[in-house]
């Protein structure tokens, strides 16, 4: 089990305190800085491991950073505090950007990121709750995170507790029936304390979602399943912060975050082959150049 990096944890706490009083502009500037750093370390992790899912890592980065650095109530020095907010990355193949975000928020030392997928590392190719603080449940097989998040939100409701649960899903992942089962459970139990964010980058592993098994009309599906729908630009931190405000309708909130797979590196953007392609040394240099 990894442990918190005390200086980074302190820095994270300061950041949260600072951000609490900051203007939206100041907040966004901080979040943008962190997102850039997270993307840079993702490039390095994947280049070193020679494995990873860089396209989806980049489409979800701004969502992860907004949640962890801007919204969620978490304490990296006490990752299992009972009143913590729960965050579940259901699209677990994007572990690299989750690990990187957790490290930048002080959950463990950034130096650990270099061990991504190395023999005996805690940083497995998919998030592991037992080894990595900040991971609430193991994921990797798609279609698992949403039901678990629904159960967590239900527990909070049963206890009258004020912590919230956020789950992040891939859009391709929404083809798994288990997600729609969870969506029905959550609306049936009126889990206003649950937010599901879909990383709507319109690509999955082999092709576009609409060419593989279409999801549209996607927003209508959520509404018809009893959810409050919010649609945002998933790379706009300010819009994400606003969309992550608590439910106003007593219903669970679905945020359809429109994103670009490979966001941030021009030659990876919206290209299906970067789902799990590994950049060459020249591409690593070019990517890091763009992410300055």
């Amino acid at each position: 089990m990894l442990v918190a990096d005390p200086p980074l944890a302190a820095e994270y706490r300061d950041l949260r305190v600072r951000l609490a009083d900051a203007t939206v502009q100041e907040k966004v500037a901080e979040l943008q800085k962190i997102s850039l750093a997270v993307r840079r370390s993702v490039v390095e992790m994947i280049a070193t491991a020679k494995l990873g899912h860089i396209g989806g890592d980049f489409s979800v980065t701004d969502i992860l950073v907004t949640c962890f650095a801007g919204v969620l109530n978490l304490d990296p020095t006490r990752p299992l505090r009972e009143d913590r907010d729960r965050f579940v990355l259901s699209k677990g193949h994007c572990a690299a950007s989750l690990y990187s975000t957790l490290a930048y928020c002080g959950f463990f030392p950034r130096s650990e990121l270099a061990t991504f997928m190395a023999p005996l590392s805690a940083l497995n190719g998919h998030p592991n709750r037992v080894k990595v603080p900040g991971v609430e449940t193991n994921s990797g097989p798609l279609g698992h995170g949403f039901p678990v998040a629904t159960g967590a939100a239900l527990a909070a409701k049963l206890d009258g507790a004020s912590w919230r649960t956020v789950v992040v899903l891939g859009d391709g992942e929404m083809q798994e029936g288990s997600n729609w089962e969870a969506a029905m459970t959550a609306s049936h139990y009126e889990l206003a304390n649950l937010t599901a964010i879909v990383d709507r980058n319109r690509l999955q592993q082999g092709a576009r979602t609409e060419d593989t098994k279409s999801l549209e009309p996607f927003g209508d599906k959520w509404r018809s399943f009893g959810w409050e729908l919010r649609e945002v630009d998933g790379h706009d931190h300010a819009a994400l912060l606003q969309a992550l405000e608590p439910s106003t309708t007593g219903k669970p909130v679905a945020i359809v975050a429109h994103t670009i797979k490979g966001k941030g590196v021009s030659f990876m953007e919206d290209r299906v082959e970067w789902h799990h392609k590994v950049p060459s040394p020249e591409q690593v240099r070019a990517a890091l150049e763009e992410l300055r």
Partner: protein
Amino acid sequence: MSIVTDATTYDCRQAFADELIRLAEADERIVAVCNDSVGSSNLVGFRERFPHRLINVGIAEQDLVGVGAGLANGGKIPFVSAAAPFLTGRALEQIKADAAYSNTHVVLCGQSPGMAYGELGPTHHSIEDLSWMRAVADLPVVVPADPEQTRAAVRWAAANPGPSYLRIPRFKVPAVTPPDAPFGPGIANTLTDGDDVTVIAVGTLVSRALAAAERLRAEGIGVRVINMPFVDPLDVDVVLAAARETRGIVTAEEATVSGGLGAAVASLVVAESPVRMRILGVPGVFAPTGSAEFLLEHFGLTTDGIVAAARELLGHGLHS
């Protein structure tokens, strides 16, 4: 009998793809069904050749197997293909109820089994599939060890009117199957003769068993190496002969020891002809992070590991 392996390795995934296309040319009932896995299920060539006979249900494994069963009901011969852990684990009940219990002609193709996806972790390792699939009645479980056997498995499954599970290896492996080796349920391949100890292996472990036999032969230990592509139904005669004629049996599989090949062999010999055994596999734990090769080493699923297990068996045998 001579040891048939050499240093050259061959691609089972290509063998699977080529044979499927060859059969589909001749029989238009053959269709491929996958879960956003056209590339990882080696179906790119199939899609080019037969665009309308490739059905991609997206990321939806329960749907995948159910749709496969329905296609079979409608007169097709579906090769239902996905990463082995998700195909077998996620759709276990569909496999049981819709494929096996309903006796439909669905060919389940588990791609990249064992610890082929080493670094991706235990969610992506398919080490439980042999136990799970063995536990389902009326479902033959086939683990080809090389391209020759992969092609034979595809041909057999296309012709066999019931369901089957084929475990398609990810990595290149040496050729281990002798020319004209028979292939079918309950038929093993005996690759080397020997009277001291028997090694029964499947898949990636077969070439390692042959290398172990060679090493032991140099020490004067005769090893009978058996490749058992049908983990279910087993070749009962070959197993019982080994139990009677040699002093112990080592089994080796890239799978958990709970319920796979070793368990199948053990429950047979314990009833008919008890003999000492060593069951090599993953010992009831989730693997640490690491590459496939690292993990095979980690769990002793290597030539050295097989040699050590055989020696240990014989050592114990001498003192008992």
